[in-house]
């Protein structure tokens, strides 16, 4: 098992490398530089800045330097937020993103699976259709639309929840962002679960279980659930990167200091260091997640273990 995990991690190093290289050069291909702005700088100053950030060296040299630093765990300076290194900023933003993202992740899994199971149990019944429609709405409405609507409704009309901000991580502040972030994933997961559950319920071993006189509950929980979860689990990997996509929006609208926003701003500001930093960071996140997914597979299906 550990052996396996270790290999997986090793095998992702080339992945990381490719991604970083790609970003590095793609980014430099893009027009505009970190120091272009409303007010153009005097040449002399531009040169000084360039020198300060090694931008005066050849692209390849810069690339080598960057990789070199990266190997020593140094993500380099931020071109824009000059008082912090990239690493520092990521570390500051990390907890927020992780908390919001993690809770959204958890919420979508729990709600999604429950909804899916209900849907499949009452297949084509009233609950199924109700859930189904709600789910679909969540699936089709873009989160940058849902967010302001919720803000208006819960924040301004009902005045139940704060409209935005971190508020020291008070639950009330977190609710809305988490919900907005989770909504589409609740939808996807419940759809997956429903489909899978219906399929599993048709399988022979469920018939056996019923012939053994087990109650509906224990059939679903003991026998049907695990196999049902397989497709859900395989969705978790992609879900991570979807969550990232979402966090870009959510953090902007709710004014949360997470790292989701960083990437957009960094890309727009040509903050090369920051962009690469976020990419590296997210890749590692996703890789780890996929690793967990594989381990979950093994847990769900003993046949994988022995294969």
């Amino acid at each position, binding site marked *: 098992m550990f052996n396996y995990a270790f290999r997986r991690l090793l095998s992702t190093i080339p992945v990381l490398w490719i991604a970083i290289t790609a970003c590095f050069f793609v980014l430099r291909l893009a027009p505009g530089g970190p120091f272009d702005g409303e007010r153009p700088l005097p040449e002399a100053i531009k040169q000084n800045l360039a020198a300060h950030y090694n931008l005066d060296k050849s692209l390849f040299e810069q690339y080598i330097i960057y990789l070199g630093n990266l190997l020593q765990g140094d993500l380099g300076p931020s071109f824009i937020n000059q008082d912090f290194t990239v690493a520092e900023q990521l570390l500051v933003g990390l907890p927020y993103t992780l908390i919001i993202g993690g809770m959204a992740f958890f919420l979508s899994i729990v709600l999604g699976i429950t909804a899916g199971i209900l849907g499949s149990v009452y297949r084509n019944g009233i609950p199924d259709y109700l859930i189904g429609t709600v789910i679909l709405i969540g699936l089709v409405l873009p989160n940058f639309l849902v967010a302001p609507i919720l803000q208006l409704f819960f924040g301004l009309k009902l005045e139940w929840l704060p409209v935005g901000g971190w508020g020291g991580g008070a639950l009330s502040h977190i609710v809305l962002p988490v919900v907005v972030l989770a909504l589409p994933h609740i939808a996807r997961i419940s759809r997956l679960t429903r489909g899978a559950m219906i399929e599993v319920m048709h399988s022979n071993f469920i*018939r056996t279980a019923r012939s053994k006189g087990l109650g509906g509950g224990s059939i679903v929980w003991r026998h049907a659930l695990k196999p049902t979860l397989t497709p859900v689990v395989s969705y978790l990997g992609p879900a991570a990167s979807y969550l990232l996509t979402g966090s870009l929006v959510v953090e902007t609208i709710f004014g949360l200091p997470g790292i989701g926003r960083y990437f957009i701003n960094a890309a727009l500001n040509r903050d090369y260091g920051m962009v690469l930093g976020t990419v590296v960071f997210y890749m590692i996140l996703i890789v780890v997640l996929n690793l967990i997914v594989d381990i979950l597979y093994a847990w769900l299906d003993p046949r994988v273990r022995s*294969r």
Partner: protein
Amino acid sequence: MMQSVEEAVLDIRDLNVRFQTNDGIVQAVRGVDVQVAAGECLGVVGESGSGKSQTFLAAMGLLANNATVSGRVEFLGQNLLELSVRELNAIRGRRISMIFQDPLTALTPHLRIGAQMQEVLQTHQRMSDRDARQRCLQWLENVRIPEAAHRLSQYPHELSGGMRQRVMIAMAMLCEPQLLIADEPTTALDVTIQAEILDLMDQLRRDHGTAVILITHDMGVVARMCDRVQVMRHGEYVEQGSCEQVFYSAQHEYTKMLLDAVPRIQVSVDEAQEPMPVDEAQGPMPVDETQESMPVDETQEPSEPDASRQGDTSSLPQSDATALSDRATGSSFDAQSGSASDTILRVRDLRVTFPVHTGWFARKRDLRAVDGIGFDLAAGETLGIVGESGSGKSTLARAILQLIQPTSGQVNWRGQELTDLGRQDLQKFRQDAQIVFQDPLASLDPSMTVGDSMAEPLKVFEPGLDRQARTRRVAGMMERVGLPYTLINRYPHELSGGQNQRVGIARAMMSRPRLLICDEAVSALDVSIQAQILELLKDLQQEFGLSLIFISHDLSVVWEISSRILVMYLGSVVELASRDDLFARPQHPYTRQLVSAVPVPDPVLERARHRIKLQGELASPMEAGARLRFLPSRRAQLPIDYVPILSERFPNHFVAEHDPLESLTRSQNKPAHKCSQ
């Protein structure tokens, strides 16, 4: 000897089952009555779609929710159909339990055996874990599972097929139910294991007085197990009565047809005794003699097939002797020289090995699927190849047809080495040698009309033909294989299994091949269809002077059609002889076990038979030393992957080395009981 209702454990009256499907309402069961008395074994026979399973799934309330059930199902006075799910659950698994066909899919893959068994006890008897575990352990032992304790903590996929079915049975018996419903319990199993499972069930039934309902399509199994039989067709019972009544004086046409259709091997009541040495043998056991003893056999017309067989056998000895004795003594073999004029296919020391991964990171290991097989095939002859699952018979077929690249060895087609053929010549060969597959549906492209499927070979082999010409040829062949021309534009899923298989055969025949390999060609079909297809094959063989290689796990089918039979075990030949010779005096313990295990659709004979039981089950080819299973005495000195040498024990009768039977047989348990009369 109808049971009267009061002593009946289960009493089904006028049961109807309808299904609401996409294509309208389907009436699966039409007003059937069933009674079973305690300790009785009722056989329910019928072909696929006859509604035999539905009847009892309905009784158990296990049907999908698109089904509507009407009628009465009295179990000890309670009408199961009126019970709530909770009440029903109190009965299911406790007083009535079920065994299903496929033990792999029927067990929950992610739960340990122990857990799955214990939950039964915990649901029904509120038993503590410790006691439950005890009980399960004890039952695993009752069903003769080795190292029971260890099994409890294993997952289903870690057990062999036979073992899984044993677990199923143990699980079904845990609460010592009054009624055990077994739905095709042995269909998915190899014949030797089937024999053991059947014995086991019989045992349990007698020890615990459980009533057993045995749902099956196999007359042999019925003949062996059941006191009473009910024959089902199109959701109705066409005939019922005691075993003997049904088998010896069938009333209904359908029953007769079924019985006729079943291919049956001739067996002496006791295979155990050593066969007489060849010199004093007056040829193989006279066929007609046995036939007298079994009136049913008369219907089986012996004309052409026998003739063809005569033809073959007469031509055989020469070639075979040289060929295989060579092989036996391991001397190198020259394709051109010793080849007899009419030997069209010559296989020598053929090997196919696959690399397989075991475990996540274990190194690849070689699976020797075909392990040095050699034989000759004469024009117009039929060679049967028998073997249980994993014996590599299908691989052999594909290797011969060069669908799989053989690892080593020669396949010589009419003087040409196939192994070193160019693409062009290979095409020619493909035109000559065709194959028919097991699953009729899966062997046809669902996105093509059957007409196109049949026309395809023509496109390749006779590009000259225009559309009409092709259609004409197809139409001709369709008629020949007995397919209505009207079906030409239909799609496979619109045809019945039998029809599809005819299409498959027609496609194979389009290129007018000289060799036709049938890989389990009839195994997926109902007996009646099976018979027709066999018949068709015989006719075609006659008409086109085909050579057939007929591969099957079902000894009786092979017996039905073959002139010579080759018995495979773990990729190598254990015995090769003319059909009658093989059945008259099987030599190799494995062969004898096989023969003895085949159930014969004849209660008296079947129950009189004595079974040979060998240590252990069929081993996987990956298992080290598995090949030495019949040579335990020499395990010590021989290399672990040693392949026993084949030698000609009687003329044209080749047998692989083995220890004497006695040293291999398990502690003999008494022969199955005679049925009450």
